[in-house]
């Protein structure tokens, strides 16, 4: 399956992906309504964009009490806003933190890959985001990526 794959060494943390995403989906520039989020640790200069991996086994779908979250035929996680009660259980269930709630509608914001042409990938200035085939069933835990990166940079032994 084609997914948005992140090269953490290339990401500059500019958050352009967040603002173009919010514009593509909500017609405004605002990271709080984007479907991609850049996790940042200024102390280490670490930046990691996080977005829905559309894992085969999705913990968010399993956690949803109102069955608002489902998979569409292509295997993408999808929120049925009509059924959603805004409880926010999916946000806690997703172990990479790819889901956030819309600050006003209180429904989950989940990456839809822009129908196969993700704008964040197209606009990424450093090509840290690519839209490519990957067999990895689930993404790495952000804290794990941080640890690996710091080891690679020899900031920690």
């Amino acid at each position, binding site marked *: 399956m084609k997914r948005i794959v992140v090269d953490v060494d290339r990401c500059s*943390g500019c958050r*352009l992906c967040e603002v173009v995403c919010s514009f593509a989906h909500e017609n405004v520039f605002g990271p709080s309504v984007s479907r991609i989020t850049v996790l*940042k640790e*200024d*102390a280490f*200069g670490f930046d990691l964009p996080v977005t829905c991996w559309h894992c085969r086994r999705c913990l968010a779908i399993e956690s949803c009490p109102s069955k608002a979250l489902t998979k569409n035929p292509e295997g993408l996680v999808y929120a049925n806003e009509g059924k959603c009660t805004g409880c926010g259980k999916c946000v806690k269930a997703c172990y990479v933190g790819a889901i956030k709630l819309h600050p006003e509608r209180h429904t989950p914001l989940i990456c839809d890959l822009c129908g196969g042409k993700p704008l964040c990938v197209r606009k990424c200035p450093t090509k840290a985001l690519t839209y490519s085939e990957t067999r990895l069933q689930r993404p790495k835990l952000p804290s794990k990526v941080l640890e690996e990166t710091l080891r690679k940079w020899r900031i920690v032994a």
Partner: protein
Amino acid sequence: MPKYFGYAGRILRVDLTKNKIKTEPTEKGLIMEFIGGRGFNSRRLYEEVPASVDPLSPENKLMFATGPLVGTAFPLGARFNVSAKSPLTGILGDSNAGGHFAAEVKFAGYDQIIIEGRSPKPCLIFIQDRETQILDAAHLVGKDVYETTEIVRKDLGRRVQVATVGPAAENLVPYSGVFVNLARPAARTGMGTVMASKNLKAVVLKGTGSVKIADSGAFWRIVEEIEEETYAHPQYWPRRVMGTTRILSLANDLGFLPTRHFTSATFEHAAKVSGERLAREYNVKNRACFSCIVPCSRIYVVREGDYAGLYGEGPEYEALSSFTARVGNSNLNLALKAVDLANRLGLDAITTAECIAWAMELHERGDLDKEETDGLELDWGNGKIILELIEKIAYRKGFGDLLADGVRRAAEKLGKGKEIAFHVKGLELIQADPRGLKGYGLGYAVSSRGADHLRSEPFLELSDDPDKGMEKFGIPEATLRLAYKGKGRLVRYFENWCAVTDSLEICKNLAENMELLPLKRAAEITEAVTGLHFTKESMWEIGERIVNLERAYLVREGITRKDDQLPARFVKEPLPNGSSKGSVFEMEPMLNEYYEERGWDSNGIPKRQKLRETRLEYVVKDLKRSPVKTRQKKNLKERCS
């Protein structure tokens, strides 16, 4: 719903004395005349902080402002200006920084934040989506910039943006900055000191708002044009690899690298401390400001030698050159440590280095006894002493207490070294020797905040291409870096451009030095974002207005031609070496031309007609009463009687 887009539409006013929070609308009139950012700040400062105000008193006001393009996907950075009356220079204080703070100001729902009064106890301001709280900050007192940011993020959320000050500011060292994203300071003119004088340790922001634009078709068309130009630009890769540190080698080659306190224009160890070496041996990755497509900031890791294990973001050319060439240090690891220390303590690297270099030159001349320096041997490039002095300055200990007041006051207090205290209007010179760059030199002399290049940055003269001068200014010499003719016109042009760029809060490295945002395009993009009508001409007028208003502010403070001067060394001593060898700096012809271009009188005071042209009528009455005019009248009376 406002009739214009791009702006948050609100201005926040926090009175720390009365614990009162107020919001005001961002008025259309203000937008059309000043756009935002630096323009907004200078306008308010002129109106609300008159000449009689002491910079460290509660009457001084600290202002943060951003521009209309900030928070959108506009790809040339997102900055904010922080302004107040400066405790270092006593005149207009203003500095700007990038990072992610500016965009968060917009997302939290404000265009400008004005902080007044003084809190009775240490506090921090927490702004979360138009809800503003003044919280206790007793637990942050004495903590350095990195620690404070970390503690605040632990308490208030990982994703908050923090603008904070270090211990140097708390000790009222008048050249400490406001720091965002740890290592991104708005450092010049001591804005951090003003913040600390209000007992304010941090401004913390978190916003879930968004920015709407008027014409998305035009917006994306212009953005795509800019993207295309940027990626094909010859400076794109050098900037991405080295940021501004690439200037160090360039300055060395062209002979304007201020070495050992401007006693030499080339540094024999330049290759050892250059941006190239930093990129090759230290850098691990690039970082960018909010929504910027040129990630010019770098994360370095010191892998071996002294201070192995040290890591951080930066440094840029000014800070790197400060703690290498300027103080005669050839140890790059040590320079990185010094920059890191200055950042943590919250100091302006340029001014700190000038103070240290000044003391070192005095020591070299034999004018400084060991007793006066607490037994420190101030030899050029003595690493341990540089680090010790930085700390002593920040905590005002011993000899550091003298240096902690800036080089102008230090020379006055010590009673020697006045002629080698390199400042204009109290602000210390940056890392470019004006003898090798005449336009920059003129820029330092007339800049509204003191010796600084970011008010004009006439980079075209680095090209040494007379055709450009002919084409743009009708004077071929204008773009030759060692020529004098046409520099007035050159500096005026760039000052206006910089004022507009600062008011849009866009990065000058990209907008200006890479020529990605000429005034015509600035007008187009502003129109697309705001839906208000702007043209190239109206942008030029806005630039002109801001520069004139800031000048009027200075005149009201008593600044005239006598203050628009460079220190004696640049005027009298020819450059000893390098490719600009033998040059001195002749001020008067350039200054005359500049005043004439500006429509100011021979004393550097804007003429009434000029003020009327730029719709600054309200300034006229203040200038009539300015101390200078009063003094002149008094002299005249005395002479007559």
